[in-house]
């Protein structure tokens, strides 16, 4: 049976078709009103530097507990994220802040920030979920080696309709492990957004095909392809934050497909880094 009405949700809970999965992410890197990927913190799920073969699409398919784990379901069932809870391990919550939840579909690691030559990306492997790219966004993250300046890149991508186009966007120098998606038309600062530029009319990205730095930022960068799942807002110190997607997100529980690699970008609203561990639970329901 599938979940198609409120009674189905309650029935799923009644028959035990739900799971609560805990997580803990230890203190993260320095960031001040910028988004950081919690995968760059130790804990459970474990640290993940998003490395692999340079410029090669690396599909993200959750295995065991390398991401937030959820149980397998029957072929005729659908799984949803019902609720997320999050709190700090100490009174200093480092909040308030914002969390952006996503299904990491894959990434292009170790993009050379010193090269001004065209870097052709390998798309032998394709999106493991949302195959046409509808609703899939790109996010640029500076990983492994820090940038030394703002960059400006020309990027060739294929959109959700299969149309290949070229865009130009800045790549911001914010710090290692931070989201540095640009929104400027030159190599200047302008941080804070998550989703990278797309061609006019594009409703998503199927693949990134080539990147050429017009102004190289140095360091190494990774472009994620993500499917946004939702957001949640954190309260003040030591305050347990809860996002019930059914009740507080217009009844829209994000669907969680088999293999979904669940990740979080976090942005604390005070201080310059998260100095305490975050704990929490993901609640899944299926039917």
């Amino acid at each position: 049976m599938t979940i198609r009405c409120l009674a189905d949700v309650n029935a799923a809970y009644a028959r035990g078709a739900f799971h609560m999965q805990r997580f803990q992410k230890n203190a993260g890197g320095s960031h001040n009103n910028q988004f950081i990927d919690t995968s760059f913190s130790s804990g459970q799920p474990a640290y993940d530097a998003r490395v692999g073969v340079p410029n090669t699409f690396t599909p993200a398919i959750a295995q065991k507990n390398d991401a937030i784990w959820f149980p397998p379901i029957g072929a005729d069932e659908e799984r949803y994220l019902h609720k997320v809870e999050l709190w700090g391990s100490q009174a200093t919550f480092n909040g308030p802040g914002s969390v952006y939840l996503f299904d990491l579909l894959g990434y292009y690691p170790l993009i050379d920030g010193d090269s001004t030559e065209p870097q052709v990306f390998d798309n032998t492997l394709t999106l493991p979920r949302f195959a046409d790219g509808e609703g899939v966004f790109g996010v640029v993250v500076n990983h492994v080696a820090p940038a030394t300046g703002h960059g400006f890149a020309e990027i060739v991508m294929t959109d959700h309709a299969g149309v290949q186009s070229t865009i130009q966007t800045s790549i911001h120098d914010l710090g290692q492990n931070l989201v540095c998606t640009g929104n400027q038309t030159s190599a200047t600062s302008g941080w804070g957004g998550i989703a990278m530029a797309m061609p006019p009319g594009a409703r998503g990205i199927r693949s990134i095909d080539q990147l050429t730095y017009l102004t190289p930022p140095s360091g190494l960068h990774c472009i994620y392809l993500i499917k946004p799942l939702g957001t949640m807002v954190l309260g003040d110190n030591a305050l347990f934050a809860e996002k019930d997607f059914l009740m507080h997100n217009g009844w829209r529980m994000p669907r969680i497909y088999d293999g979904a690699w669940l990740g979080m970008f976090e942005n604390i609203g005070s201080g310059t880094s998260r100095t305490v561990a975050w704990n929490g639970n993901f609640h899944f329901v299926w039917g």
Partner: protein
Amino acid sequence: MAINSTDALVNALTAGQTTRYDFNKITGGSAYAIGRWYDMSMLGALPIANAWAGTALAWKTCDEATGNGTQIFGMPHGGNVSPSKKHLLNLQAWTTAATGVPGTLTLVDLQGYWPGITNNSAVAQTLTGTPTLRYTNGEGCRLYWVQTSAAGATAQNIALSYTDSAGNTGNTLPVTVAMTASAIAGHISHAGTAANNYGPFLPLASGDTGVQNVATVTMSAANTGTGALCLARPLASISLSVLGLMTEKDLVNQIPSLPEIKDGACLVWLWGAGAATAASTTFAGGFEVVWG
């Protein structure tokens, strides 16, 4: 199946009749002033900027798929779904600049605009073309003037002759409406804190609830600069209050809930600055829609 119950909403969502779009906009090289409203369609990044293509004084229809025919600048929302109806479900937004809060983002469905109207005239400028609107007779549609190139320092008032949603022609603004001297590009020039400022939308004559056409625009004095007169249907607003803290809005549990997104809607943001907003300030976020 129309969404007319919570169960129908859950059914539509779990059946996959939903999509999300994230936006990422950055203000230009000029600071925004407290109490004023600004058009964000002409800001760059995601989606691309509106450059106000079109022939001076001639109506230009805007939609999701083609934008203004030159720039596809509206935020995509998944294409046409008729005979189903699409609804706005959730909003999220944030800014990362201390001067970006407080403030209000208002989402509108831009029906179109008359571009290339000069500020440098003190006689009636006749607008051409008949608007093709997504709302019958322009019900609920409102007007605002976007300064598309900076205005000069001469004070001026704006006057209109418009057709209301009931079909009455020759309606005029009910009050004196002052434009802002030296308004920057992007400023909704009549919106601010000065005497006779109104915003973000131009006031309508008593009893009017919408606009379907505009015949003339007349400035009280010649100034320099150029603008576009926009006709849009307001859909929803979301306020930003705390630096770095995302604001979320669930549009089911408010009245009226689930604003309809018409086929072809050209979705753009207007920004009401509650603080002096520094140049190059990022505003980002997303929205979700559902149809059934």
